[in-house]
């Protein structure tokens, strides 16, 4: 069995909205190993995104424990969490979330600005990442000059530019047509198989989930025990 990279125990997240409490995640347990490609599925409000946010250190749990890559995230302050995210996590969002005033290569370079690389090294690395996703000829294009599928590929290039241990994808095909969605999923699959990246993907799309090595289901904030292995 390979190394455990994510280990959550009795993870609970309660959101307070005015006088109401929303239990987004309730005593959730999960264990993910290095090199796995996990699709998290479930109906709206089941806690998928909340779990993803906690794994990616974008939010803090109300109770329970979560260790990612051996790091107890509850022990880190905000600035340490920010740098930890930069080093270890790559994000792919449903809405691409590129910065509109930056070109493709500048968008990909953005997370590299927080590293100790020189300007030249950063640009070389960003260019390599863009070539890897097939956009070597779109380096100086702005997001508005790209199709949805191309924008998502820029977002993937940005996610892998820092060579992170974990890739977190939130509905990565949600805004794409069928062909672009397939391209994106093949790319994620390639990153998982060829480059050994551990990927956690939240999705509603059964077709997208089929590209993962494992599907887990959440319901009402709880992780269901059944595990699907679509590629088995």
């Amino acid at each position, binding site marked *: 069995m390979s190394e455990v990279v994510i280990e959550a125990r009795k993870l609970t997240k309660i959101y307070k909205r005015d006088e109401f409490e929303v239990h987004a995640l309730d005593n959730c347990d999960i264990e993910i190993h290095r090199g796995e490609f996990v699709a998290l599925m479930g109906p709206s409000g089941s806690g998928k995104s909340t779990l993803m946010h906690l794994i990616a250190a*974008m939010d803090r749990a109300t109770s329970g424990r979560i260790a990612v890559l051996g790091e107890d995230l509850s022990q880190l302050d905000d600035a340490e969490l920010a740098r930890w995210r930069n080093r270890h996590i790559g994000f792919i969002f449903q809405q691409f979330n590129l910065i509109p005033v*930056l070109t493709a290569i500048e968008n990909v370079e*953005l997370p590299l600005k927080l590293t100790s690389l020189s300007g030249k090294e950063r640009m070389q690395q960003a260019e390599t990442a863009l070539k890897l996703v097939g956009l070597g000829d779109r380096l100086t294009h702005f997001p508005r000059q790209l199709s949805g599928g191309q924008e998502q590929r820029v977002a993937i290039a940005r996610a892998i530019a820092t060579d992170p241990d974990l890739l977190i994808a939130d509905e990565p095909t949600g805004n794409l047509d069928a062909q672009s969605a397939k391209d994106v999923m093949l790319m994620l699959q390639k990153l998982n198989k060829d480059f050994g990246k551990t990927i956690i993907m939240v999705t509603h799309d059964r077709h997208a989930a089929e590209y993962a090595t494992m599907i887990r289901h959440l319901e009402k904030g709880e992780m269901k025990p059944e595990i699907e292995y679509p590629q088995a």
Partner: protein
Amino acid sequence: MAKFITLVWKNATRNRRRSLLTIASIAASFCLLGVLMAIYVTLFLTTDESPAGSRRLVTRNRISLTQVMPISYEGKIRQIPGIESVMAYQWFGGVYKEPKNFFARFACEPDQLFKLYPDYRIAEDEKKAFLKDRAGTVLGRDLANKFNIKVGDKITLKGDIFPVDLEFNVSGLFDVDKNEEVMWFNIDYLWKSLPSDRRDFAGAYLTIVQSPDDGPAVAQQIDSLFRNAQVQTKTESESAFAASFVSFLGNVKLYLFAISAAITFTILLVCGNTIAMSVRERVREVGILKTLGFTNGEVMSMILGEATVISLLGGLLGCVVAWTLCKGIATSAGGFANLEGMTLAPWMCVAVIASAMIMGTVAAIIPALGASRTSIIDAMRYSG
């Protein structure tokens, strides 16, 4: 922070129309601030540094500058030790062709004028002509050039304070180091043109002392001499006199400070509002940056950097316009209250630009702080 300059610049200029309007409003305000600063310095902090200027004293009626003094005072003042020369003179006012043609016009005693102003450079034959011709006049060369007046011309001043129109023969033109838009003519010519009961007076006496150190003591002695007279005097240095002339305009210092404070406050609001709008439009992007690993401090620094860039550009533009305006005011001041020497000095440019940057940055603190403290989850949920 240097790594983020590209992003700061692109964000500062992403909405070009808004950025340009903000830069223009900052420029307009800080241009005004620069001009006010230059006026303040010229009126209250600049003194005539010429050796003769530091030796000149002005004696006027203690009640008001508009009240005259008997001509008999001149002989009494001349008796005081330490005085090199004394001259009676009188502001004439009047209109040269059109009311807009404003410049200083003084009646004086020609034989004393060049003793009081040894820095005036004039051709000897022109000087002699001025001394000889009671209707003669001498003008600063800059003034003559401005109105295309030449030696030998006849010019007329239409009286307003005094009920006479005077025609003058231009005897000569003098040069002086600073721009001197002033016209001097014989006070005797003025007196002879007035009814007999309005003659033999002086609006002020100009005294030159042997040493600048003698100035305060001589001023005190002059005023002591007339303490019990019907018309009492007030004697002060030429620069102090110029400053008191400004006081006719009211509490200029208070006006200047009030306007400056209003400008500062306005800029705080303008800049704060612009940055707040800009940040509101990009809450989601703030979330993206934080997701990618940017800390709260880095996000805040970048937003403050945008405000600094915009206010720096506004300050620079304002400075250029203020410098041009100062040149214009100096050219058209016509010798009024030393404004012909008005300029936007380099230190004032630095002060204007630095003030603009500081105000812009301070105004952005609250929106920047708000953005930096927004949690990633809230920022990513924001739909703008």
